[in-house]
């Protein structure tokens, strides 16, 4: 409610106008349709337990997708997030299992190690693609390989385990049935929403995605902002690593394979344009929900694996088609 009022006095138009709300509602409607469908077809779907499960299950993708939103908004892409997450988890796993630290210190160390690793990888992605004006697709594809190789090398391809008990606690803690890790993701969404809509930084990111040259000619350092966007994306990969570790209590060097596609899908299903400049992190939130609900619901209704994969593809396509019609009517 308070948000609503703030918005009325502080409109950040292309992101929070009636139109954008409708736009989000559009994909929101696809989500609603899915939820109704699953509720009707399986009694287990709308149970508190299952809702908790869904929230837990979308957390990692949501965290990654928040960072990915920044990168896609400036017209870039980051294929390395899954690998970077694994690398960060492995580094943090090494840190947390170092002998001679109390649980609190060990956890702090791990969190710092994970985020630093993520930030560093993101910084490298951003610096190289911005400095030489190279396609981020290729640079981050390179990083995908580098980070994965590094994760395997550092861990010697072994799963790292036996973390402090407090860390597990955090991973499985709930507040009124809502997983704490999901709340962490929500906080990230909120922060991203705030930054994108209410700060100069966010404004310029949208500007760069729309017309980089115009922003450059207005005297802004486009490079710096691009680097920042990739760094944020690396940061969220680091946070995702922490969530992964807390949830599963291990660090696996082969974690996160293919996560980049899921994160990108959440962003784009959420209405952010791959060519940059348009979209919102609220859309990303809904996109992540669509993917998560779909994965959950299709198992609950007992579809076989292969059918499930096919139906997932079909529903993703239908969701964006539906969204298209919504956007069309909203526009006229």
């Amino acid at each position: 409610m308070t948000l609503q009022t703030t918005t009325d006095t502080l409109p950040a138009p292309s992101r929070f106008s009636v139109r954008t709300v409708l736009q989000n509602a559009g994909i929101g409607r696809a989500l609603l349709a899915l939820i109704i469908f699953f509720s009707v077809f399986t009694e287990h779907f709308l149970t508190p337990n299952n809702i908790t499960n869904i929230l837990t299950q979308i957390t990692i993708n949501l965290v990654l997708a928040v960072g990915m939103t920044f990168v896609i908004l400036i017209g870039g892409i980051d294929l390395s997030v899954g690998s970077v997450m694994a690398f960060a988890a492995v580094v943090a796993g090494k840190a947390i299992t170092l002998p001679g630290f109390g649980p609190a210190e060990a956890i702090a160390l791990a969190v710092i190690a994970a985020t630093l690793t993520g930030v560093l990888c993101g910084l490298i992605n951003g610096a190289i693609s911005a400095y030489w004006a190279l396609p981020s697709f290729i640079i981050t594809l390179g990083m995908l390989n580098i980070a994965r190789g590094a994760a395997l090398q550092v861990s010697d391809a072994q799963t790292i385990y036996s973390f402090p008990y407090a860390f597990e606690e955090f991973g499985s803690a709930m507040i009124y049935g809502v997983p704490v890790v999901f709340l962490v993701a929500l906080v990230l969404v909120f922060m991203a929403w705030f930054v994108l809509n209410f700060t100069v930084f966010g404004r310029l990111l949208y500007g760069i995605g729309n017309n980089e040259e115009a922003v450059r000619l207005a005297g802004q350092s486009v490079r710096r902002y691009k680097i920042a966007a990739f760094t944020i994306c690396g940061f969220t990969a680091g946070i995702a690593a922490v969530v992964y570790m807390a949830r599963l209590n291990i660090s696996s060097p082969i974690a996160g394979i293919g996560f980049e596609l899921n994160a990108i899908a959440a962003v784009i299903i959420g209405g952010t344009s791959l060519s940059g400049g348009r979209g919102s992190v609220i859309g990303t939130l809904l996109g992540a929900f669509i993917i998560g609900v779909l994965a959950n619901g299709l198992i609950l209704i007992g579809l076989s694996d292969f059918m499930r994969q096919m139906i997932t593809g079909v529903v993703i396509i239908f969701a964006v088609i539906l969204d298209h019609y919504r956007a069309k009517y909203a526009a006229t």
Partner: protein
Amino acid sequence: MVAATQTAAQAPAHSTQFLSVERLKKYFGGVKALDGVSFFLEQGEVHALVGENGAGKSTLIKILSGVFPYDHGAISLDGQTYRPQSPHEAKERGVQVVHQEFNLLDHLSIAENISIEKLPRNRFGLLDRPELNSRARKALDAIGLTDIDVKAPVSTLGIAHRQLVEIARALQSESQILILDEPTATLTERETKRLFELVARIKADGVTVVFVSHHLDEVFEICDRVTVFRNGRTIATDLIAETTPDGIVQRMVGRQLAGEMVSGDEQKDFGGVALSVQNLRTEANPTDTGVSFDLRYGEIVGIAGLVGAGRTEILRGIFGIDPVRSGEVQRDGETARFSGPGDAIAAGIGFVTEDRKDEGLILDMPISANISLANINSVSQAGLLKFAAERRQATEAGEKLKLKYGRTADPASSLSGGNQQKVVLAKWLARDPKVLLLDEPTRGVDVGAKAEIYAILKDLARSGVALLVVSSEMPELMTLADRILVLAEHQIQGTLQRADFSEENILKLAYGQTELAGGNSQ
């Protein structure tokens, strides 16, 4: 002028009304872009559409060319209903158009761009390159671009050349109606003349031409009839022969326009040298001497020249966009090394670019965000945007420049061409620069607003700002400038003081002559 009266006299006597538009309406959400437009075209006439910025001219044209549909009303063409669903359909019906904003394929060659509607095929069905190139060659020669390589990609062209390529393209296919939306906005006299010759020629072939321009002298030179738009409606259609420019202006604005601005001949005292350019050569400048001049505080210096003379490149060089090959720029007497626009802006310089679509505006973002782009720090605190302040800034700028818009939150793309241009200006005015570089500052701006802009620029100069204005409109330079540098072949051919200002003198220098009618080149 003689020719003009003749064409007017030849206005078709037997009315062959083959396109008629009745009570046409087009809404964009709440914005009534067209709110009752009625007029008709006769075969073989040149018909002018005039009106203030945002009056609805381009919207009508986009409807006629099938870019988007209309909401109410009726159009008939050749006695049949006309409701084109796509540009393709419009073209099938013989409607050809040059849009106000460019639609070129930057990475394709000029020749390919010119023939994009119907690329020639050889007898194997393959792309016929020799034919493609020779067609383009012919088309460019016809509009006087003899020195341009048709195989070069469009991205290597300056803005005026792009406009000419657009025109050449539209002239490629047989059409019964040719619509030109502000084709002359970026052209210099020479190209405009040649365009008019072409228009006369195709008119003789029976083609109907619709012509949009904010230059009434042009309208009077080539048109037979004129339809005036105001606020999305057509006010009247007149025979050119039966009206006067003043009469049209009055209809356009719905009131008497305040008398022509007094071109202040008062003796001015300029401050110190704000900007000094010495032997400046950018990457695009092939000469080895470069360009040198001084610009003082309070002074307005104009730069004239033909298309491609190298005017834009000077501004880009000064502003740190293009790398400087040799020579230097001094700011307040100190050598300035701008590694990018950011440095130039920090040194108090502003730059209104000629290419608003690609360089000036973020089309999808709100008007207010575009206006605050260069001075975002003044509408923010600690990195947080102050939306109220930003909106206020936009509203004020809008009032000052007579901007026609819905809400400051609307995207810049919802504005008409002339209004977009005003937003680009507003962006830099909001910044309070000490030195302002302007490249075609009134491109596409209507008569009334132009006068306002001139007044604003003069006020700026009076308050001590140094202005450097590049323009293809000689009257504009003569109204504004205290001094005009005339460029030819990337070099300053001569400098004209106020006393020597005349179109003739400018043209002579621009064509490379040094003998002047009145004074002398220095």
